[in-house]
């Protein structure tokens, strides 16, 4: 009998796993036990040293800016990878046969939905920009704001149709924006070389400090926030467009 043996093996493994799990958790410090020196130093220094009130953004885009550059390129490369996969599939597929079983949208959106989503689009764009430019002051930043910005064309797609979505997310411009976003971060890092400093040193004037910190404070951090916001927003729009494009081809055939 093969089945009981397998079950027996599973239970032995599961019990072992449970014991190890419990042991691991027994020594886990609570949220109060995580007071590290690094955290205290960062909290004390960011306002004075970098004119930044959101310590997390200071770590991400300044003190550990090089790590974030790597993360941004991970996103950039993933988007490119997804595009390559989707495009190759599309080319091999050749001429698509019109398919009545898959109308892109059988029922037109109702008036209430259209009014609501179109009304929402402006505030969503504004909120996205707000989150991007206030990265060094409050929670948020280029990454979070960028994704919020990328949802604005989606709202329009929900309210209208793929034609309108395509017109807004005109492909080449979005790709150029993504490239500028990805390359801009590295270029801002290169500015430090003109001052004989290491890559990604914050050499740009820090702007107002103390209690007057505003969206222009933080030296290179607001600039990096902008490039990351551009990169993330454009990357997500490119990805959405690639996924939805196939449906558009079908809609055009019908």
């Amino acid at each position, binding site marked *: 009998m093969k089945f009981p043996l397998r079950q027996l093996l599973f239970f032995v493994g599961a019990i072992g796993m449970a014991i190890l799990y419990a042991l691991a958790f027994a020594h886990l410090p609570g949220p109060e036990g995580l007071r590290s020196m690094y955290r205290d130093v960062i909290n004390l220094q960011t306002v004075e040293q970098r004119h930044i009130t959101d310590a997390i953004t200071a770590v991400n885009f300044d003190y550990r800016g090089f790590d974030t550059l790597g993360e941004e390129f991970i996103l950039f490369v993933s988007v490119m990878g997804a595009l390559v996969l989707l495009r190759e599939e599309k080319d091999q597929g050749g001429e698509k*046969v019109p*398919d009545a079983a898959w109308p892109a949208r059988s029922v037109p959106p109702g008036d209430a939905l259209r009014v609501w989503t179109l009304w929402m689009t402006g505030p969503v764009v504004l909120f996205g920009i707000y989150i991007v430019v206030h990265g060094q002051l409050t*929670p948020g930043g280029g990454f*979070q704001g960028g*994704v*919020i910005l990328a949802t604005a064309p989606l709202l329009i797609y929900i309210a209208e149709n793929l034609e309108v979505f395509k017109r807004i997310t005109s492909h080449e411009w979005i790709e150029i924006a993504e490239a500028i976003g990805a390359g801009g971060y590295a270029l801002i890092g290169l500015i430090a070389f003109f001052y004989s400093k290491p890559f990604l040193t914050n050499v740009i004037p820090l702007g107002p400090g103390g209690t007057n910190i505003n969206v222009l404070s933080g030296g290179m951090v607001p600039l990096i926030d902008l490039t990351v916001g551009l990169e993330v927003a454009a990357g997500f729009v490119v990805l*959405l467009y690639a*996924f*939805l494009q196939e449906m558009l081809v079908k809609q055009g055939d019908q």
Partner: protein
Amino acid sequence: MNDAAITVLQVMTLVLVAATGAAVVFTRQPAHQMVGVSFFGLILALMFLLFQAADVALSQIVIGAVALPLMVMLALGKIRRQSIEQDKKEHGE
């Protein structure tokens, strides 16, 4: 809010995280699962907020509750369309 209230809220969200996480795992239909994942993402964001990680909470909302389910849904739709087309080819329609 005082510390005790925060602790109560933290415990409540942790229980919710466990419950919604289990619900996601035990959902069999991928399309239904994505709705669960989206909700799970929101609960996780609430948890991060209560543990004073506001930046992570924001990222979690946009990625876990919006972007991830959306991407998986689009991919699922694509796979389903492909398999229907393949069926048609095989049955000579």
